[in-house]
C-alpha cells in the first residue's frame, strides 16, 4: 500500500527582513499532514540558510494570530514568520 500522506496546502507570507532575505512576499506551499509551524520554518531555513541567524527572533502567526511553533498546520492556513516588530 502506498504510504505517502497527502500534502496540505498553505499560504505563507513574508515581511521585513524575512521578505528581503528570501525575496518572497507570498507563496503557496504544500507540506505533509501533521507538520507543525516549526517544521515549515525548518523547510524555509533549508532553502534560505541565511534565515537561520534570525531563527531565535522570529515568531509565527497562523491565520493572523500569534501561534506556538508546535502548532499543527491545517489545510488552507495562512502562515507568516514575523521578525521583531518595530511600529510606532
Amino acid at each position: 500500500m502506498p504510504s505517502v500522506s497527502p500534502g496540505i496546502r498553505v499560504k505563507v507570507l513574508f515581511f521585513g527582513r524575512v521578505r528581503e532575505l528570501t525575496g518572497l512576499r507570498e507563496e503557496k506551499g504544500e507540506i505533509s499532514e501533521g507538520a507543525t509551524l516549526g517544521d515549515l520554518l525548518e523547510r524555509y531555513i533549508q532553502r534560505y540558510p541565511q534565515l537561520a541567524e534570525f531563527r531565535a527572533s522570529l515568531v509565527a502567526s497562523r491565520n493572523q494570530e500569534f501561534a506556538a511553533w508546535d502548532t499543527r498546520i491545517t489545510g488552507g492556513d495562512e502562515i507568516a514568520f514575523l521578525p521583531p516588530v518595530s511600529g510606532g
Partner: protein
Amino acid sequence: MPVTSENDLYELVRSTIDPAALVRHVRAGQDGAIVTFDGFVRNESHGRATKYLEYEAYEPMALAKMREIGAQIHERFAIHRVAMVHRLGRLDIGETSVFIAISAPHRAAAFEACRFAIDTLKRTVPIWKKEHFQDGAIWADGEIPPAAPKTKPAS
C-alpha cells in the same frame, strides 16, 4: 471579537495623518479630557542621521491587533472613544507615523490608557520600520511580541 466602541477609529493609512481631525473624532459632550500621543520621525537613530523611514505591515493582522488594544483599554480604563492610526510607506523627518487620541470623562483614565496603548502597539502590532541613512539602511531592532510561543522551533 474584542469589544470596541462603534465610534472608535482604527486605521492604517498611506498619506499624511491629520491629528486635529482625530482629536475632533474622539471629542464628545460627555467627556472632560483628551490625551493624545503623536509619534513622529526623529532625525537620528543611535547617533546616525536618518534620511527617511519606510514602514510596512501585515495589514489585516495589524488592524486586528490595534482593535484588540482598543478592546483592552476599554475594559481596563474608564475611557470614551479611541482613535488609533498608523501610517505606512515612506515617511520623512518630522512626519507623524502613529497618532492615538483617547477621550474620557476624567483625565487620569485617558493618560493611563494612552500610555498603555502606545506601549502595547510597539510590542504586539506586526509593523516593521526600515531606517534609511546616507550610507545604507537597516531594519530597526524591534521587539519580540510577548504573545509569542515559549517553545523554540526545533533546530
